[in-house]
């Protein structure tokens, strides 16, 4: 869980920084998007690096979901008779919602790929003009798209809040003081990542990017 999660988080950071290029205008953003297809050139043919990264991330995602499924099945088997009286988990909302949150994030990723990668759900759907795709996506009259992104990203934020701490613990974080630091770092990181992703749709919605 920890290793595959960290791989996915590294991608999330790079993806967020790339998204923020939108504030430099259409030419810069489209140029950046095109560069993603030509990384490694001229050694690698066009799109090879991109496909390599997709394969790696896909494998990490499958391994992440597989490990989660194994843990969930073991948990179910470990308590065949349930408690009659069971209050909600007292420690953390983020920890309690890891599994269903993960399902929501997976559905969101599918929607996101259909929207801004394949373009099937995008009103412009022009691979050469990603800036136009994004601006059309988050237009005020398509407010529900923004809503889907907000739900997806906030769920991701909660997932990361527990996930980042849990990954550090799995890899051997071992002192109480370090635990407080790891929990704070996970919270700050989750909030920063949410803000970095959500600023794009809200900037379009507010007319700052258009």
């Amino acid at each position, binding site marked *: 869980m920890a290793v595959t999660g960290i791989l996915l988080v590294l991608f999330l950071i790079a993806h967020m920084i790339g998204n923020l290029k939108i504030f430099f205008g259409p030419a810069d953003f489209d140029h950046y998007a095109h560069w993603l297809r030509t990384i490694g050139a001229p050694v690698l043919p066009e799109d090879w690096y991109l496909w390599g990264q997709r394969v790696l991330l896909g494998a990490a995602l499958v391994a992440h979901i597989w490990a989660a499924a194994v843990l969930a099945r073991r*948990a179910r*088997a*470990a308590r065949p008779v349930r408690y*009659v*009286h069971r209050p909600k988990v007292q420690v953390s909302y983020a920890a309690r919602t890891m599994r269903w949150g993960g399902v929501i994030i997976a559905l969101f990723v599918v929607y996101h790929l259909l929207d801004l990668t394949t373009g099937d759900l995008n009103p412009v759907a022009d691979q050469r003009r990603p800036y136009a795709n994004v601006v059309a996506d988050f237009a005020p009259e398509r407010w529900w798209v923004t809503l889907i992104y907000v739900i997806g990203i906030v769920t991701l934020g909660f997932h990361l809040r527990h996930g980042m701490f849990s990954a550090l*613990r799995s890899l051997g974080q071992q002192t109480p003081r370090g635990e407080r630091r790891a929990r704070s770092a996970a919270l700050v990181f989750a909030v920063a990542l949410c803000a970095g992703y959500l600023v794009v749709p809200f900037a379009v919605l507010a007319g700052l990017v258009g």
Partner: protein
Amino acid sequence: MNLTLRIWRQKGPDDPGRMVTYPVTDVSPDMSFLEMLDVLNEQLTLAGDDPVAFDHDCREGICGACGMVINGVAHGPEKATTVCQLHMRHFSDGDTIDIEPWRAKAFPVIKDLVVDRGALDRIIAAGGYITAPTGSAPEAHSQLVRKADADAAFESAACIGCGACVAACPNGSATLFLAAKVTHLSLLPQGQPERMTRVVGMVDAHDAAGFGGCTNIGECSAVCPKEIPLSTIGRLNRDYLRATRERSGTPGT
């Protein structure tokens, strides 16, 4: 105080079991929770009914024998308190209290609130020991231990093996127990010779017993009557990672 108790009654391992409601009257707020159950059992015995079976021994909070889930919380509502040290003053007149046994596949119910915690013993047997020299006690200063290590080891050594961590864990995992035992021994010089085989053997015994996997939620530490810190699980993970990296960590090599 007058209370309504809803208690899990199960005649034996093969009985499906059910919640049964009992009224208890004239409970003193100074009674411990177990004394309140003693009063109920006297009433039941006088009425010719089967008394409620529950584990208990020292009633001082140090043996780890007692334990039940009260209103969904292992050892009841007081923090850092075993059920024998929980007093009725923490409840109110007219309360309905749900009492259930520890629920885990690895802890089969023997009768009513008594479960078989032999799985924890099997984890200990897989490595929770040191090769101690026999004979007279060695000079205490012959082996120096850093104060920070001694404190952390002692914190873990406080584990009484009651099983509340398992009862509270949404995954049905005994990782806090496992981590306390591994940490206790591997922080001290006496625990070093078996350090790597210990962690591998005990984790394997834990998984083989049918406990779930840890997802670092922290319910265990929240209910632990000895307040074993969640960070001990990090020490366990670190030892396990090291043991599985080094060939010497594999038993039999």
